[in-house]
Each structure stands twice: as C-alpha cells, then as structure tokens.
C-alpha cells in the first residue's frame, strides 16, 4: 500500500491537470448552463467527504469495541481528510448555488446536515488536539455519531424540500456527462487513498515516537 502512495499522487495530479479540458468538452446542462460544470468536482469531493465519515466511524468502533489501537491512526487520518473534503464541498457547493439558485446557501436538510458533519469533524480534531488523556475514546464516540449522519445526508434530497439535485441525477447522467464525472471521480479517489495512507502513516509514526519518549523517561 505504501508503495502505491507516490504513483497515486502523481497520477491523480496529472488527471486533475487534464480534467479542465475534459470538463470543458462536456455538454452544457439545459437549465443551469456552464455553472453546472462545478458538479464534476463537487460530486467527487462530497462523496469522499461521506466516505471519510464512514472510515472514521468504522475505525473508531474498532478502537472502542475491540481495543484496536492501530485503528485509531486510521480514524484520525479519515477525520482530517473529512475536514478538508468537507471544506471543499461547502465552498464549491455555494459557488454553484449562487449562480444556479441565486443564493449562496439555503437551510435545507442536505446542506444543514453536511454542515453538521463538517462541524463534527472540526470538533473531533479539536478534541484530539486539546482534549488530553481519554480524548481518543471520547473522539471515537463522536465519530460514530458522525457516521450515523451519513445515510440521512445521502437520502435527504429525495425526502425533504430542497433545491439540491436528487440522487437520481448520477445514474441517469447522459454518457457525455458521465465520462468527465467518472474521470474526476477516479482522480479524486486515487488522491484520497494516497492521502489517507500518508496521514495514517504520520499518525502511526507519532504513536511510535510517543512510545519511545515514554520508554526513555521510564529508563
């Protein structure tokens, strides 16, 4: 896995450099026009934002219920990436909305719950940074509730009043719009896997460093 990190970063960076040309070649959407092209990178980062919450939650469960200390590194890595991807989602979305809806933000279920998930990641990171002893277990509990939010965020657009496109948009996408979308999705996913692996390595090295310092103090 470690060996794949650098090739994944290089390949995804190359794909994301080419992406504007592929996105430019995609047809315009009939009602939103050019601004709908934000979709090609808003969708991948938003989905990976939700995937981060699931990875963080599952690894936190491994920490809480199975005392798997190594899983904590993966949970911290997913939380930090989730925070970054959440910020990207919450910036690209309103930019698209300003043109398509005429407003930057509406307090509908999808947007509000996404903001809550982003704030959960922010709280998790603050807790892990400044919470002191026991913050790992407290953070793990918080991450579980973050993960529980994910199915609601996903189906919210199909259930509650909103201006946000529904989940049926992606499966019914015309082929010439689907190609740029899945190209960008593949690039962002590769970058996500590489960054998650890199961030987890950093956390595992930090744990090792702390153990070495503790052993030195005891000696």
């Amino acid at each position, binding site marked *: 896995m470690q060996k794949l990190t650098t090739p994944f*970063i290089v390949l995804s960076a190359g794909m*994301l450099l080419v992406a*504007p040309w592929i996105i430019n070649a995609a*047809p*315009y*959407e*009939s*009602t939103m*026009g*050019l*601004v*709908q*092209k*934000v979709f090609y*990178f808003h969708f991948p*980062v938003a989905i990976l934002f939700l995937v981060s919450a699931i990875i963080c939650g599952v690894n936190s469960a491994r920490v809480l*219920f*199975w005392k798997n200390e190594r899983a904590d590194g993966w949970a911290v890595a997913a939380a930090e990436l989730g925070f*970054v991807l959440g*910020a*990207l989602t919450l*910036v*690209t979305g309103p*930019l*698209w909305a*300003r*043109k398509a809806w005429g407003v930057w933000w509406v307090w509908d279920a999808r947007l509000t719950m996404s903001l809550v998930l982003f704030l959960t990641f922010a709280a998790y990171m603050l807790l892990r940074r400044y919470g002191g002893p026991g913050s790992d277990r407290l953070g793990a509990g918080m991450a*579980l509730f973050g993960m*529980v*939010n*994910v*199915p*609601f965020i*996903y*189906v919210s*657009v*199909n*259930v*509650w*009043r909103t*201006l*946000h*496109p*529904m989940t*049926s*948009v992606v499966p*019914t*996408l*015309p082929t010439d719009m689907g190609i740029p979308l899945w190209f960008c999705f593949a690039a962002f996913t590769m*970058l996500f896997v590489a*960054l998650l692996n*890199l*961030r987890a*390595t*950093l956390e595992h*090295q930090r744990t*090792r*460093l702390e153990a*070495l310092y503790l052993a*030195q103090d005891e000696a």
Partner: protein
Amino acid sequence: MKIVLLLAMLMIPVTLAADLSTGAVASVEQPQPPAGFEAVDDIPPGEQIPAINIVAAAYGFVWLALLGYVWSLARRLKTVEAELGDLESRKR
C-alpha cells in the same frame, strides 16, 4: 454483544432513511428538485453572472486546498520521521 450494538447503531439510520425515501414521512406536496440533467450544445440564454469565473474559482480553490494539504502533510511527516530517526540513533 459488541457487534450487535454496532449493527443496531448502523441499522437505525439505514432503516429510517429507507423509510423516509419511500415517502412515508413526506406528506406535504413540494416542488421537485432536478431529478436528472439534460445535455444541450449551447449555453442557455439569460446568463447574467459569468459562470466561467465561478467554475474557475471553484476548481482553483480545490487545487489550492489540496496542494496546501499535501504540503502540510509532507512537512509534518518529515519532521516526525527526523525526530524518530534521531531518537532511535540515540537509543543505540
């Protein structure tokens, strides 16, 4: 017991979400959001805000944020590995 508890935690939102998506809760008639995208060859008339600026700003922001994050990650990893190497060599 732990697995049952975890599955229960996960199943509650999944079941609720499935229930909601069947329309069990949404009884008030509401305007429908876009259910699909329709492709056209030309930009539709009535473009008031130059959308190219918005698309470019959004993509530029994604690039800058990700580059910043990769740089920060590489810097932190380098610091920790240097400290680790130093500590291990002193231990020997």
